[in-house]
């Protein structure tokens, strides 16, 4: 699987993770280009369905990135997001897709380096897990 470049969708909260991603850019750090960010007002807005749809459309992994625990701009949206990620992980396991393809992470606005590090590590981890298994099925069916 050496030529496999995973596509990771990141749902990033406007207040922390999205800003951290901007800071990573300004600090000229790098992470794999397969990491693609969608902005949300708060991870509390990230619905389980969004995660499912991202995987269904072919993402190899999904990250939900919110503020540090205790620092959510909207009190506890990040905690809700974490609980939803757990539920989606179980559902994915149940349908034969490794739930570890989805993860919740927390970064503060200033943590550009941490964002780059998380994005890289997660992308590598997905790289090791291989492509989203629905891809092969989709090809076979086509």
């Amino acid at each position: 699987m050496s030529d496999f470049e995973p596509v990771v969708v990141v749902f990033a909260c406007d207040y922390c993770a999205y800003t951290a991603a901007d800071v990573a850019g300004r600090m000229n750090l790098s992470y794999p280009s397969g990491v693609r960010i969608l902005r949300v007002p708060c991870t509390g807005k990230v619905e389980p369905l969004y995660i499912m749809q991202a995987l269904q459309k072919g993402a190899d992994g999904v990250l939900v990135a919110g503020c540090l625990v205790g620092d959510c701009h909207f009190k506890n949206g990040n905690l809700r997001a974490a609980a939803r990620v757990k539920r989606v992980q179980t559902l994915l396991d149940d349908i034969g897709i490794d739930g570890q393809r989805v993860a919740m992470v927390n970064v503060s606005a200033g943590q550009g380096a941490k964002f780059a590090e998380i994005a890289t590590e997660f992308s590598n981890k997905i790289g090791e897990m291989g492509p989203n298994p629905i891809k092969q099925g989709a090809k076979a069916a086509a």
Partner: protein
Amino acid sequence: MNQDNSQRTSNSVLVLGGGIAGIKASYDLAEAGRQVYLLEKKPALGGFLPLLDRQFPTNDCNICYLSPDADKAGGARTVQAMPLTKLVTLEGQAGEFNAKVLTSPRFIDVDRCNACGACLAACPQGAISFTPGLDTSSPTCLRYPQATPQAFAIDMSKCDRCGECIKVCAPEAIDLDQEEVEQSLEVGSVVLASGAEAWDPAPMEEWYGHTRFPDVLTNLEFEQLMSAAGPTGGKFQRPSDGRHPKRIGWIQCAGSRTTKEGGNSYCSSICCMISMKEAIWAMEHFEADLEATVFFMDMRPMGKDYELYYQRAKKELGVNFVRCRPHTVDYKEDTGDLRMSYVDDHGTMGEVDLDLVVLGTGFCAAGDAQEQAAALGIELSSYRFVKADEFAPVNTTRPGVYACGMALGPQDIPGSLTQASAAGCMASANLAAPRALRREDDLPKEQDFSGQEPRIGVFFVDWGRVVQEVVDPTAVEEAAAKLGGVVHVEKLELSYGQDGLSALEKAISEHQINRVVVAGYSPRTHGRIFAEAIRKAGLNRAYLEMANIREQDALVHHGDPVAATAKAITLVRTAVAGVRQAKPTPSLTLPFNPDAMVVGGGVAGMSAALGLAGQGGKVYLVERGRELGGLANELARTLDGRPVAPELAEMVQMVKANSNIEILTDTLVVDHKGQVGSFITGVQTGPGMFYRQINHGVTILATGARRYEPTEYLYGQDPKVMTQLEMEKLLASGEGGDALDTVVMIQCVGSRNDDNPTCGRICCRSAVKNALWIKEQKPDAQVFVLYRDMRMPFTSEDAYRQAREEGVLFVRYSPDAPPRVSKDGDTMEVIFKDHILDRELAVEPSALVLSTPQIAADEDTEELCEIFRLQQGPGGFLLEDHPKVKPIDTPAPGVFAAGSVLAPASLAEARTQGLAAAGRALTMVSQMSLVLDTPVAKVNGDRCAACLICVRTCPYGIPYINADGYSEIDPAQCLGCGVCAAECPAQAIQLPGYEDDRMLSRTEALLEGVL
């Protein structure tokens, strides 16, 4: 220029200083429709706040609360941020000042700089690494990751023009030949918020060894050590050898409360809290077994409920507190550790070994305070802070120039913000009637595109070298042109300068564009700017989507141009897909009643009423008693000996004489309904309790507190026992002085105990005030003050010192061995333990004075909370919206609070808070209408199953089930987090911009070709 202009026509304010106080004052004023010039002598806004990793008492990181403000202050059209700029002269008078300002060259083009840090690394004179905060003096300095503006600057005094930085700067942003620019600004008022400086421990090197020993840090340096953005990247290591510190000592009053040379004699007021916060944070997040010890003389947690924070640190979290006089810090060669020696409470010498020493250093006046004061033509106090007055706490000696924040003295954040709002209120009184700048009437009518196919324009900005080197512009532009719905693709040459924006507006009308994608910058930094630009072209602000191909593509994938170009196309495609489904967010304009109601006619309430009168509509001042003045009626003089009565009488007179204020005494508030802008409050007034309804747009609550009625120490049983207020009355009468041979005062009676764990905050100052007055009337009187901690903020410390010098004896007692009072016939005896002599003393006082607190007027406040749907805090006082960043706001929009209804307050505090509440209210009142255009959750009533899930999950409790049986969300209150939409099981709630179909389209576009 404009010398003939004698009318108040200016709508502008000059704010000096871009710290939290300056930003707050600017933002309040801008919201109230004022033009603001925000000057900052440093390259970026932010002041001290960004240097703090965490802020007490909530111990959270509030950078995100500052950033949007800083961003708005920097980006909003009515605030012009001018970094690297200082005031040269200020001529004219209130209402018509002419300010000459000088902007130093940055030597770096802000629009080009991407803050990559290459110049910093290359500069031979300066830093080797990027260390914000710990190393602010390096020639190029980015203050913190969210710095506004986001660019470096070069300090020419340290630069030898070697040119290394020019070679490494990819975006060619460096221009060493930039020159300084002088400008002349017409303003009606000036707000001075230039802050203070952290005290440098160098002059007291022999005691603290800060320069010699790397493991001796100041508290601000320690903040950086704990910060994820700091030099260790969030790893908890001591500087000398990188070891994980296990024993940390905080030395309080480092350079404060001292008469030693190089130190300051005043109390720096906030260092106790800073140190406790650091100790708690370190223990909770880095080292649970940390031996954290605070070495202190008096613990002074003096803000609202800070005492509870102290007690929690001590009793629950296990921070050690050692009462002593810290002596010196030495280095131990054998272990590499530090040894601190001190003299404890009993006068014994002690020593302790520590891995790290943190100096609780305070703040001192800025180095250029004198120069600035001269430019402004104002007087400074003996400590070079701005000279203010108990009765005019944010005024300077020059009319029209106001001050706030640390320029007035060391200050916590809530204090600074409160003063900033107060100064804003005062400043705006000198201006012409405000213009409601955000009124939609100023803008062309929004076009209606309903039923029309999307015609999308894609605009590329910042194809600067840094992006072009990585992303192929032609490929992206060609790809963009082929996307469905795209009718126009254009490159905007000048990043976001005015020319670029007018080109955008022109293209929109020329090509009948009804949706816009801007590719280049981050929506976080530039979204608002482009949203305003398309609005000016007649498009709803929601018809914009940004593709972040700079920060989230070109800058992070610089090593892989092919992938970066492909990703740029993906991001543009995603933005196009998203904007294709954009629906207009109707801006909601609500009529706003400019009248205000102020409940409570004490100093805070009167200040609020005077602050508002003449700036908005009418003010209804509601007082339940017969007279105005409140608790201040019982005060005779201030700590510095000025009589209170004349000042108070003048204030009452001003209120009564003001035709814009309607005073309703003997009046009770009985009900309250409506929302901000259109409140209706019912009152019962006069002896007949006549019911009447008052319409108003904003509410200020200033109902005060009540005096604690002591049951301790034979109060009420012996005429010699009295409260400080009663003593003050006795002294004012001039009849009691002679009999006062021996006076004993007992502090913390009715506070800091199980029944009332909070601190009375101002009783220490009352005791010192009365002690000095007794000494004044009868110099040979013996006065004992039995105390637990003397809490004398800032310069009141001087009065404390003076009292000691005049022979007042301060004897500490511990709460488990309080003084005892016994009475045998006519003889009363007070027995207490002297810690230094280590024995009990018995005194027969001619007066026993109890220092009792103001306590929450419990039932009244409870009733108030019920009527206005607010909450009470731990001590029964009114709960503010946020103890740190919104100390004067309440959680109910349009309702503000001031004075001792919030916490025991001094005269100056009550006055400041009253003005601040008025200032906050002005941000709404002066708009005349309430315009809401941020996306807020919308409910589709047909789909709603009235399941209550939104009602239960909203972090602010805003949704409710309406009379028609479905969920309703008040757009005036919703903050747009989207939690309700995410939880709604019927998909009945949608958040504009993030609708389900739109998120799906974005996801599909983002992943096109993957499957």
